[in-house]
């Protein structure tokens, strides 16, 4: 087990290192840089800027150094001091800009994943046991629709319903009166009231998919000989189901948990944009549009790191759940 953990951990570190390089290169791709955009903005509000100023700005932002050098400095600062560089738009350290917002993104992602599995596993078991029942068909059709509706559309539909039917705007994560208030019990309640909509939106597409997986594997398992043996032995049906076929059927569910987290985090920025959530999504979009490479790069890096870490966790859970995986890795 220890060797297995170590191996997975080393792979994770290697992936993170490769990832940081790719992220930096992608953000370097757009022609022009932040200094040019800055000069362009100054010009558009009528300030006279010379060619020399442009070079000065570029030097001031540190953008005149070759990119490998900037990459090395960026990644060294992250690793040694947890410093993600300076956001060029906000003229503040990236960590300050992201600050609380990253916490919201993480809470959102985690609650979406919990909702996803909390719904998918019981419904999947139900559908497999009551195959071709009305409930099974209903969930199957709902599942299809859940897959077919992109996240942002679901967000728009819910916004529309909330405005036309309930007459309130559910965008954001706080009501106006709590927006800048310090944390308190009332603010927490208000926060939870707003949290459920993005949670549902981010959770649904994955739920639909996992219901199908759970249903299919359980259908395969429940007619196997070992189940018949257990039944012949006289185990009560409920206990039998949970102890044998469900446990085996959980395998593909747990092993794809990392991908599910990837899917949730992947959809988060656009949903956050539509619902105007004060999390990292809108920041990310703005950073991309304005070529703020440190802010955009750091966020892309954090999103990916979250999913890589999630995959690592799901590997560990799989090893705990299934002895065959542990044994297999030892050889």
């Amino acid at each position, binding site marked *: 087990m220890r060797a297995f953990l170590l191996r997975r951990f080393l792979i994770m570190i290697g992936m993170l290192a490769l990832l940081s390089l790719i992220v930096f290169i992608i953000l370097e791709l757009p022609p022009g840089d932040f200094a040019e955009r800055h000069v362009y903005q100054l010009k558009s509000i009528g300030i006279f800027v010379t060619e020399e100023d442009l070079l000065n700005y570029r030097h001031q932002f540190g953008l005149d150094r070759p990119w490998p050098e900037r990459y090395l400095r960026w990644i060294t600062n992250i690793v040694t001091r947890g410093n993600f560089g300076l956001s060029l738009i906000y003229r503040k350290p990236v960590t300050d800009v992201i600050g609380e917002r990253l916490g919201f993104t993480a809470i959102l992602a985690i609650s979406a994943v919990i909702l996803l599995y909390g719904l998918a596993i019981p419904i999947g078991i139900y559908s497999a046991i009551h195959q071709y029942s009305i409930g099974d068909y209903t969930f199957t059709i709902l599942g299809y629709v859940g*897959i*077919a509706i*992109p996240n942002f559309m679901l967000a728009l539909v819910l916004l529309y319903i909330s405005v036309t039917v309930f007459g309130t705007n559910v965008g954001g994560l706080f009501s106006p009166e709590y927006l800048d208030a310090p944390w308190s019990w009332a603010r927490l309640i208000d926060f939870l009231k707003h949290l459920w909509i993005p949670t549902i939106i981010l959770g649904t597409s994955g739920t639909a998919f996992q219901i199908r997986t759970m249903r299919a594997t359980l259908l395969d398992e429940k007619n196997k000989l070992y189940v018949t043996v257990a039944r012949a032995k006289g185990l009560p049906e409920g206990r039998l189901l949970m102890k044998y076929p469900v446990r085996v059927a959980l395998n593909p569910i747990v092993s794809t948990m990392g991908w599910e987290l*990837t899917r949730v985090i*992947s959809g988060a920025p656009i949903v956050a944009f539509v619902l105007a959530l004060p999390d990292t999504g809108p920041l990310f979009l703005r950073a991309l*549009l304005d070529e703020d490479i440190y802010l955009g790069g750091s966020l892309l890096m954090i999103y990916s790191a979250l999913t890589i870490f999630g*995959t690592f966790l799901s590997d560990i859970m799989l090893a705990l759940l299934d002895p065959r995986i542990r044994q297999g890795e030892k050889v």
Partner: protein
Amino acid sequence: MADLGGLSGTGTASQPGLRGLQTEKELKYYTATQAQLIWWRFKKHRLALLGTSILAIFLIIVLFANFISPMDPFTRNSNYIFGPPQKLHFIDEEGTFHLRPFVYGVTNELDPETFQFNTVEDTSQAYPVQFFIKGDPYKLWGIIRTDIHLFGVEDGFLHLLGTDKLGRDLLSRAFFATRTSLTIGVIGMLFTFFLGLIIGGISGFFGGRVDDITQRLIEFTRSIPDLPLLMALAASLPKEWSPLRVYFSITFILALLGWTNLARRVRSKLLSLREADFIIAAKIAGSSDARIIMRHMLPSFMSYIIVDLSISFPYMIIAETSLSFIGLGLRPPVISWGVLLNESQNIKAISQHPWLFSPVVFVILAVLAFNFVGDGIRDAADPYAT
């Protein structure tokens, strides 16, 4: 001896018709080609058939977008800005029934106090819907110059889905958007197909170290959240590029992240087929590598490839729509589903002009149809299905 012969004779004679029918049926089953078998099994899947008919309609829209849309997608109707959808009527004010549906003339005026558009139906003016009517001129497939549209009205105007902020007909725009968004899916699928086939092929064919590296690469690609990465890549396209160039770049970017499933499939099939009896037999018979791959290996997993491709299609559509929706993908004057929905992205637009949101129906229908068809092919192509 003769007795035995008689016995067997009576055995067949007792149910001659059934026997004959059975063998004929069996004969048909055993001599059917792979494609026929797949088609028979596919036909049993009702949802897949439904999906196929929806896709057929979409194909007609893609091919004849100019003809079936009542207007040119860029024609502005300055009398009907932000106009809500017009209702089709069959029964007029006097209660008489008309077989030919008609619309009433509508005026849409800006209220100077509230700055909202007030729409009033004028029941004295009725415009019956005409078929094969003259309208905006266009060139069908770039060759045939004509001005005949499938339907429309004379004198007045017909906006069944309403109009946008410039008074352009939303239904026509949705038809043209269908053309763009679906072709993006098709071209993206082709890119995906080649990337997956080549990378998976190399991985499975060489095996060993190359295979290891490719597998790590696939795992790596899968573990990056794709939409943020797509956003970053799409944002890196220069703004001054021509729409066509952006269109192809976006398609290629989508394929760049979508090839992993197919590559995995091709690799695992190649690896398992390498050891299969019929491949070894072909080798012993002296077939060349190229012949073995093209003639023996590829047909045996082609159905899987088709399934994977049909499943990657909804992914392409959703990804393109999402990107264009937040303004990082295609941009006007190109019309795609995402570009249309881009106009309905804030709460004000949705509450005041909810019809701008209607292209969503197209997207959902397309994605559902592709999922149904993909499921149907998967079930039909599975050789182990009962």
